[in-house]
Each structure stands twice: as C-alpha cells, then as structure tokens.
C-alpha cells in the first residue's frame, strides 16, 4: 500500500503541496488531474521518492520512503518522467537493457528485451539508434523500459508504476493502445498505476480513480463519476464544460 497523510511540500519557500492525503489501492489506475501549476507533477514526484523533503511523509508498505534504498525502491516501483534527455547514441535494445540493475544471462536478456518491446509494438526498432527515433517512438521505448522494470519479477508482490504525461507525443491510436496495455498489466501483475494526465476524457475512459487538484490541494478524490461533475470541473478549470455520457458508458467532458 502506498499512502500519504497530510502531506505538505515547500520548495524554495513556496508551498507547493498542502494537506494532501491519499491512498493508492492495489490493482487500480489513479489519474492525477488539474489545471497547469496545480502541483500534479510535484505530487507524483513526491510519491515516487524524487523529492527529499517528502520522503518521510510517504509510506510504502507501512514504512517511510526514507527507509528504502534506491535499489529496494526500484524493485517496488518504476517511473516514467515527463521528458528524458539522452545525448548518446544507444541502441533501443540497450535502453531497455538498462532497466536491469542486476545483470542476467545473455539468452534471458534477449527474451526480456523482446517481451518489453513487443508489448508496445516497437520490436522493429530493436537495433535502431535511439537518437534517430521520432518523439513518439522514443516515448514508446521509454514506456517499454519502465513497464519491463515493474513486471520483471513474477511474484505476487504489489508494485507501482508512475507515469507523468506518458502519451504526450503519441497519436490517437497509439494513446489508446498504450492505455490498453497498461490496463492489462494492472490486472496480470498486481500493479497500481499512478499517472498524471491532461486529457480528462482519457482519464475517464481508463482510470479507476481520479484525483483532482488545484493550487496544491486535492479538490476531489474518488471514482470517475464522482469526480467528473460539471460544476466541479467548471470551478477547478475556470472554464465552462458540459458532461455527456459516452455511448459505452463513461462520462465525456466537452466545452460548453
């Protein structure tokens, strides 16, 4: 279980997160939503252990994050940041291989890399120079890397996958493919996903729980139907919206 109670984060004398209480349930997808500057990324970084000031305030399996080494944490969660800058010409297969902290045998390694790449339909990029890929291809390779890290052990330990705007460079079809893959691993691997999203409709379609933030506070936290209410969204985004049911059931947010 990953949880935080009354979390406060102050960076450069500015209060970024205020009184955040949140519990992430097993085998769920939680989407953190909110307007620009709401503190979504900071909350995600705090939960995954990037922000030193928040380490003691976040509990993983009942223990503060500060009690874990980075190696131990890497066995319990993996993280996809908003952007990754790499200046050296690694092959795609080598980028995936990096997610193996402990080296494994060559033949197992080949299987591991192939499985990771095929999950996101990027097997054909195996021998390509990462630097020559398009933004969308790079993003799918990085997704393959973080998903490989969080699914590399076959035990039933609960693990966490953090995704910050993980489909920002992808087209419509690839966006949906990625979320379908993520939904399926949540079920098959006992993984809880915490992701930052801008697209309310993607969140409505794929997330189990929504956390709506504004100015460093959680405004609303609950199921998709609980959170996506017209007046709430109007107030938080300061923009008029209308909510209509998608033919398949989930709510759809459109400008009023």
């Amino acid at each position, binding site marked *: 279980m990953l949880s935080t109670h009354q979390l406060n984060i102050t960076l450069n004398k500015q209060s970024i997160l205020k009184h955040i209480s949140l519990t992430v349930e097993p085998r769920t997808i939680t989407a953190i939503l909110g307007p620009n500057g709401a503190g979504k990324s900071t909350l995600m970084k705090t939960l*995954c*252990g*990037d922000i030193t000031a928040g380490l003691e305030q976040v509990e993983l399996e009942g223990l503060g994050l500060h009690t874990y*080494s*980075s*190696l*131990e*944490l*890497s*066995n319990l*969660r*993996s*993280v996809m*940041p908003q952007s*990754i*800058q*790499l*200046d*050296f*010409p*690694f*092959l795609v297969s*080598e*980028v995936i291989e*990096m*997610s193996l*902290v402990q*080296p494994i045998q060559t033949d197992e390694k080949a299987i591991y890399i192939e499985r990771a790449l095929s999950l996101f339909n990027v097997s054909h990029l195996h021998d390509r*120079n990462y630097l020559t890929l398009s933004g969308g291809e790079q993003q799918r390779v990085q997704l393959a890397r*973080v998903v490989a*890290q969080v699914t590399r052990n076959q035990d039933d330990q609960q693990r966490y996958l953090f995704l910050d705007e993980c489909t920002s460079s992808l087209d419509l079809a690839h966006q949906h493919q990625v979320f379908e893959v993520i939904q399926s691993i949540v079920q098959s691997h006992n993984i809880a996903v915490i992701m930052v999203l801008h697209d309310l409709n993607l969140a409505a379609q794929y997330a189990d729980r929504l956390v709506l933030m504004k100015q460093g506070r959680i405004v609303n936290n609950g199921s998709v139907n609980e959170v996506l209410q017209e007046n709430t969204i109007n107030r938080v985004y300061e923009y008029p919206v209308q909510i209509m049911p998608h033919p398949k059931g989930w709510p759809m947010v459109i400008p009023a």
Partner: protein
Amino acid sequence: MRLTQSPVKALLILLFVTMLLAIYSLSVGAIALNTQAVVSALLGWQNDLHATLVVNEIRLPRLLLGVLVGAGLAVSGAAMQGLFRNPLADPALVGVSSGAALAAVAVIVLGGSVLNDWVIFWGFFALPFSAFLGGLLVTWIIYRVATKEGRTDVSLMLLTGIAINAIAGSATGVLTYLASDEELRTLTFWSMGSIASASWHDLAIASVPIVFAVVALPYFARPLNAFLMGEAVSTHMGFDVKKMKWGVISLTALAVGAAVSVSGIIGFVGLVAPHVVRLLLGPDHRWVLPGSALVGAMLVVVSDMIARTILAPAELSIGIIMSAIGGPFFLWLLIQRRAQSGF
C-alpha cells in the same frame, strides 16, 4: 553505424595493436634500432650493451609513462563525459588538468618554504597527491557551477573551464616569478606537457594511482550508462547515484592528478579517445572505459613518436602534437553538434 558487434573481440584487437605500436615505438628515435635489437634488449640478451641502455633506461620508461598517462587521461575523459552527460568534457578543457598542475607547481616552487611541512609529510607522493587535490577541487567547482538537478549545461561547463584555466594560469604565472632557474625549466614543461624526461621514478609515482583508476572506473560503467538518461531516471532504476558521482569524481581526479604530476598538461586525449571508441563500439561505458584507456595510450605513444622524430634531433613537446590533433577534432565536433541542433 557501429563498426563492430563484438565489443570484447574489438577490445582484444585494440590491446594487440597497442602492444605492437609500443614495441615499434621503442625502435624509433634519434638512434635507429631494429626490432630485433629492441626485443633482445627487452629480454635481456646482452649482445648489444648500447642498445640495451637506450631501450631500458631511456625509451622503455618513456613508453610506459606515455601508456600510463594516455590511459589515465582518456579513461578520465570518458568518465567525465558520462558524469557531465555530454561528450565535450575533457580534463584539460574544463580546467581539471590546470588545477592539478597549479597544485603540483605550488609544491615544486614552495616545497622548500611555505609548503615544507606538507612535502615532508607526504614525501614521495607529495606531488601526485597535491595534484589530485587540485583536480578534485576543480571537478567539484565545475560540477557545482554547471550542474543543476543532475543536468549539466554544456556552455556553462566549458565557460567555467575557461575561467578556471585563466585563474590557474595566472597563479602558475605568479609562481614562476618565485621559482629558481632550475625550477623554471621544469615549469615550462607543465604548461606544454611532456614525457621526454620520463624516469623509473616518475613511473613509480604515477603507476599506482593511474592503474587503480583505470581498473576501478569500469566498476561504475552501468550506473554511468543509466546516468546518461538523467539523475532521477538512474535513481529510479535502482542505482546509487551519489556513490557513483563521488566514485567517478575522485577516481578521475586521481588519474588526472597523477598524469599531470609526471607529464604536465596534455590536452585533448580525454576528448579524442572516447569519441573514437564510441564510433567503434557504441556508447556503453562497459566498453568505452577500457577501450578509451587503450586508445588513449596509443594516442600518446604515437604523438610522442612524432614529437621526437619530426624535428630530430630536436624534440617537440607532446602537448603541441596533441593540440594539433585535438584542436581540429574539437572544432569538427562542434560543427557536427551545430548541424544536429539545426543552429
């Protein structure tokens, strides 16, 4: 894109070529010796005392020092490029070498006066240890100035290097006024870089720290690979970033300090060698670090051969040869980056 798919084989070939070059270099110089004479001198078959003397007392220490210095500088350059996450770092360019040189010059000039106690305390190792501290200080300063949240700004890094080179240059200049005539002669060698006066004594000083760094740095190869995607990403993967940073910073300072204290400032070895290796073997530090050591050794040995033959019987400083190779190479790299960034 890469010239080989088998890094281990390529490393063995590099090792073999380095050894051939090394043996060949023993036969080159003011007195021409054939390979047979060189080999028999090395193996101690004393059929030619003169050749034995030239090889064992003059050329062999010089060769070995060249190998050590080249390997040390190149492996440090490769590791620094990983640490700063950009391929333009070089111990001399960013000022680590001049910081080490300043410390070494201070020990030479002030060793009899202000720093007397320090020199007596460290004895034999006063020179390389001081150079190590100078290099360590500079690396730390550059890291603090040019790096924020694990990202190094390339221009800030290079500009910090200019500033540090200026500061260290002026301080070294002041020290030369305090130096005696004999000390002065050794001082010019610091700024130009030379392995001409190599002795078994120099070798004894430099070998332990450089061999240690060359062997120990590849231990950080995998964390360095991950670090190229950023500090946060490598932490998420489970690597101990803090340990890696301090390991790499101290080991590079150790190797550069030792190299500088016996050969002065030889620039560009740490820039050219890792680039050549990346073209051959790709950017994986598991191969780049040992490969750079070999290519760096070759570079210095070849440059030294040129330095002592091109104007024979006079000798050029090896630093001049390396700059003649490295300067245009650096320019070519900058032009390439310019093309890539669409500037």
